């Protein structure tokens, strides 16, 4: 009778090697697939939407290749407008069209757009490029 009784199992410790294998594979997966890059976006209305928002005449700003903002059609504006001058010369609630020079790089455009957003310009659109100051297309 005693031979039929199952032998008492000895308490065996579980090997950790299999666990480590799985954890290492998970670690590799997350290390290779995760990204820590944060993206942001500068939102702008296309001229199509901007024209439907209001019928008021927009104001124009020229952006030069080196990132300088200057007023289009305003005689008392300097070549590189400071934040204060921008606030005094322009109405922040009116639609504003930014006209970059053809060779202006995207980095300068993004800087100008975010600068205008900080200054409180709400309706900024990108217009047709203007080669020189004073030309409005």
């Amino acid at each position: 009778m005693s031979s039929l009784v199952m032998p008492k199992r000895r308490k065996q410790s579980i090997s950790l090697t299999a666990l480590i294998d799985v954890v290492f594979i998970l670690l590799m997966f997350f290390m290779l697939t995760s990204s820590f890059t944060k993206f942001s976006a500068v939102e702008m209305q296309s001229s199509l939407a901007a024209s439907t928002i209001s019928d008021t005449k927009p104001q124009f700003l020229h952006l030069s290749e080196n990132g300088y903002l200057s007023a289009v059609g305003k005689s008392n504006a300097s070549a590189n407008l400071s934040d204060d001058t921008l606030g005094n010369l322009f109405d922040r609630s009116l639609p504003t069209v930014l006209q970059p020079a053809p060779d202006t790089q995207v980095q300068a455009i993004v800087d100008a757009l975010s600068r205008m957003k900080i200054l409180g310009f709400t309706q900024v659109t990108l217009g047709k490029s203007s080669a020189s100051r004073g030309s409005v297309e």
Partner: protein
Amino acid sequence: MNVFNQLSRPRRKANSDDNLIPLINIVFLLLIFFMIAGKIEQIHDAGLTLPKNSHAKSAITQPITLQLSKDSEIHLNNELVSFDSLPNALTNLLLEHPANVAVRADKHVTYKELDKVLEALRTAGFSTINLFTLTTEPS
């Protein structure tokens, strides 16, 4: 000596796995860090260097992504398209998705090139254009 042996606790039989416990602790911590802090996402950047910005708001993934590289190659939703076929492709996509589009342009692209793409987007009828940037810490 005999007395000392009686007073000391009986020694556990040394196990080879015991040496691995600190390793497992560190690996688990690393795993938890990558699981929580990292974000799994598929990025087809086509060799783009996005412009940097510290003030823009966080980007929301848009259903339509247009990439413009410095060699003027256009990728629409990760598929290479020529400039001539862009209006048709945009019109088809606009029928499926709302009117928001994400533009990922290389920071060295000039406005001359970007304006052509923006013009195509305007013509297709997109009302809001999100120009994607890389977030940097404000100085």
